[in-house]
């Protein structure tokens, strides 16, 4: 029987919160992928979003604000066999953790980043998140937002992520499919999830989004963001298309897969070229004890050049 990814921990998000839809999409996606509870882990940061791992029946680490990405990278590097999903806030990943977000694009370790994009800092009572539009005023702001917004899609593209998508927490079917694709993608994937926060964001509400979202592949029957091995020459054009679509915001908001480049080797593959036997015998599987209970490592052989 398929593993049940939902557990019985009480969920304490506000009624009507978009986070519920993301949680359900995650559990369905993992179940449909026929994964087991020990095949996949969730590593989150801090925020309303950061509580997600506690609601999942699988290994879950609710880390520090902004640091979900490096924690998750460590897990994946030490055990590349694990699927690692990172459900975290927009403040978490694009504000305090923005440096890690950019660095992970360059690494392409093989993580699934799910950005809970509610344009606010939910858990600290509604301050502006880095994703909020300049001049927007949600209900807990004393005056309109004085900062410009960071665009998760174009930032992800420029940072080098090899899979970039957008979902909407109230379209769970699409979101579930995006998560499945992202989890199976070899490199690092970003899914920007439009997530209404009914408690603090009275501007970008569920209705507001419903009126604006459309699907890239429905709008353009020829939309094909995928670059497969052998077709590396398509990368530039598809990247530019993705970028242009990524800029679109306002009356119409595109969702779906913007970019899916399967030709960029993951960090784990790159490491495998240098670290002997890395993928076969990664750090987490290595036996570090010799048969007598002492080290099996020979300092004389390993550091021979230091012998005089």
């Amino acid at each position, binding site marked *: 029987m398929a593993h049940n990814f939902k557990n019985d921990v009480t969920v304490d998000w506000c009624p009507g919160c978009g986070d519920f839809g993301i949680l359900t999409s995650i559990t369905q996606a993992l179940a449909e992928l026929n994964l087991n509870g020990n095949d996949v882990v969730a590593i989150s940061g801090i925020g309303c979003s950061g509580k997600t791992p506690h609601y999942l029946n699988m290994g879950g680490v609710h880390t520090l604000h902004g640091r979900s990405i490096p924690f998750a990278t460590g897990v994946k*590097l030490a055990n590349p066999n694990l699927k690692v999903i990172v459900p975290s806030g927009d403040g978490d990943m694009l504000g305090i953790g923005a*440096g890690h977000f950019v660095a992970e694009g360059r690494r392409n370790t093989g993580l699934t980043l799910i950005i809970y994009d509610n344009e606010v800092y939910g858990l600290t009572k509604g301050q502006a998140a880095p994703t909020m539009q300049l001049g927007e005023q949600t209900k807990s702001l004393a005056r309109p937002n004085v900062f410009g917004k960071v665009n998760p899609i174009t930032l992800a593209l420029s940072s080098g992520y090899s899979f970039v998508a957008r979902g909407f927490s109230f379209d769970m079917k699409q979101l579930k499919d995006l998560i499945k694709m992202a989890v199976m993608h070899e490199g690092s994937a970003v899914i920007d999830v439009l997530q209404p926060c009914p408690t603090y964001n009275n501007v970008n509400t569920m209705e507001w989004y419903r009126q604006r979202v459309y699907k890239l592949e429905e709008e353009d029957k020829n939309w094909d963001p995928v670059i497969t091995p052998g077709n590396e020459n398509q990368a530039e054009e598809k990247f530019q298309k993705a970028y242009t679509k990524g800029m679109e915001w306002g009356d119409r908001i595109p969702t779906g897969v913007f970019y899916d480049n399967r030709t960029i080797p993951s960090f784990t593959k790159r490491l495998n070229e240098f*670290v002997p036997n890395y993928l076969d015998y990664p750090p987490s599987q290595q036996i570090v004890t010799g048969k*007598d209970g002492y080290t099996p*490592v020979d300092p004389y052989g390993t550091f021979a050049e230091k012998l005089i």
Partner: protein
Amino acid sequence: MDLNVAIGGPQGGGIDTSSNMINRAFAEAGYNVFGVREYHSNIKGRHSYNHLRVNEERPRSLRYPVDIIVALDADTIFEHLEDVGPGTKIIYDRSFESSDLAQARMIMRDTARRIKETLDGAKFPNTVKGAVDYMKSRGGIPMPIPFNDVVASANAEGPAARYFNTLGSAVTLSIAGLDQKFTIEAIKQVFSNKEKVVAENVRVVEAAYRYASENGLAGKPLKTLQKKKRFLITGNDGSAIGKLMGGLRLQTYYPITPASDESTILEEHEEYSFIEGEKNRLKRGGVVVVQTEDEISAVTMAQGAALTGTRASTATSGPGFSLMAEGIGFAGMDEVPIVVTLYQRGGPSTGLPTRNGQSDLLFALNTGHGEFPRIVLSSGDVEECIYDAMKALNYAQRYQLPVIHLIDKNLANTTDMIPDIDTKRVPVPQTLKTVPSSDFHRYSLKTETGISEMGILGKDIFWMTGDEHDELGHVTEDTEMRDSQMRKRFKKLETALQEIPINDQAILYGPDKADITFVTWGSQKGPILDVMEDLKKEGISANLLYLKMFLPFPSEFVKKVLGKAKLIIDVESNMLAQAAMVIKLNTGISIEKSILKYNGRHMTEDEILKAAKDIYSGKSKNEIEVLQNGA
């Protein structure tokens, strides 16, 4: 033989190569060399030098005045004005003599001002010639050598300056009386048998030896000792070797002096080899080294790896360690086994980026907000770096907490000759789980020791959170669970204090009762042990309370030792006598006298000896003697 040498030149000018030649040449003749590298935070041009000591026995400290100064540039003469004494031989290029202090732009402005004051005060001109004459007035023996002519006589290809380091080393070795064949052997090793380079440099060596003997500089032949195989390594190397032996399989780092060398060394040895009999049993594997985007990432990425059952660590220095504070707190709260090797340099802020310091002790004990258990241990010599790195990884696994391993910059950049590396000194217990735990409670309170079973991502289903948590690892704010989990975490420190052998916590060197009881930690261990012998010769007995573990703290042992002490002198490389503060906090014992140094330079035997005698004799009434040696 007991020879102290300072060999200096511009940063990037081959000083390390020179020292390497000297080290290897003496090693070939069976001698031991111990050295420390001093350098500016600069890539090219500013003064850098190596301070070396050569002896039949393994030296463990350095001394001023030196016996030989080798100046590969004019600045070296100015910078080391005060490091000469009666009989110090000063080797330099004759062409430096006309160099003017005012033109020495790479000397720090205040240093130049002080040199000028010294020379003016003693009525010597502000030139290298004046400086050499000043040194001569203090007993130094100038040995100007026409560097260019000697190189020219060797017919070596390329600009003469390329060979100055070989020349300087060869002259030094000739003055020391070392047979030329050893020097040539060293050249072969240093240039890893690159035939042409070796040939050119060998000719320079021969020319240098020829010049020295024709001009009466060559020393009387040194006796050749039995040569034994040894490791020529630094503190950085030691820690890297220990980590690899101790099962480290993932290291993260963000570049910073003096820590990154450790990670570079690990990366260079990402493929390790097995001891006899293991090759057939174990699969070929490697260690993963990751250069991260910052130290926050370094400390958290290492933890991610640790959660999969991997022995993981990171290495950093003050500024990076400051950034790690929150992450270390997570490891404490969530019981994640990680090792943070903290290479201490002069702080605060960017401070003295390439200089020594021991001012992070209190910070290491208190890094991060809130209260959580950690182990803080410190090494005092290159060998200790090896075995302590192994122990640190073991402690992290056994007690599931962050272990902070303190190594000071001086030790990181100390070069030592280690007779052997004992693979059987520190056991490496296997912690890898093969069977998942059913009904797993990661933070189970059913434990006497405070230690609960470790969870492995990929094997067990469990949860973790930096919030206070229940036994399953879910968020809780329940008052009783909070109290229980706090007590569980801290219980591990009591367990550690009981389980860790006292010798790994603190050591008493010397007699039980003594006229002077020194207290120290880190790289002053060696110099103080030498000072104890010097004092003995003068009829003063001394012992040393050497601290290795600061958390948990061996209060009982320290109380016992200090309770018997007549005169306690605390010796540290910081301004606030931090170890003495820790002792006071844990035992109530106040230490009245301290010898402290915070100018960033290594402590030397002579300066500690003088300060200790001044305190002992009552000549100095100061509570604190501040040491100032070092260019």
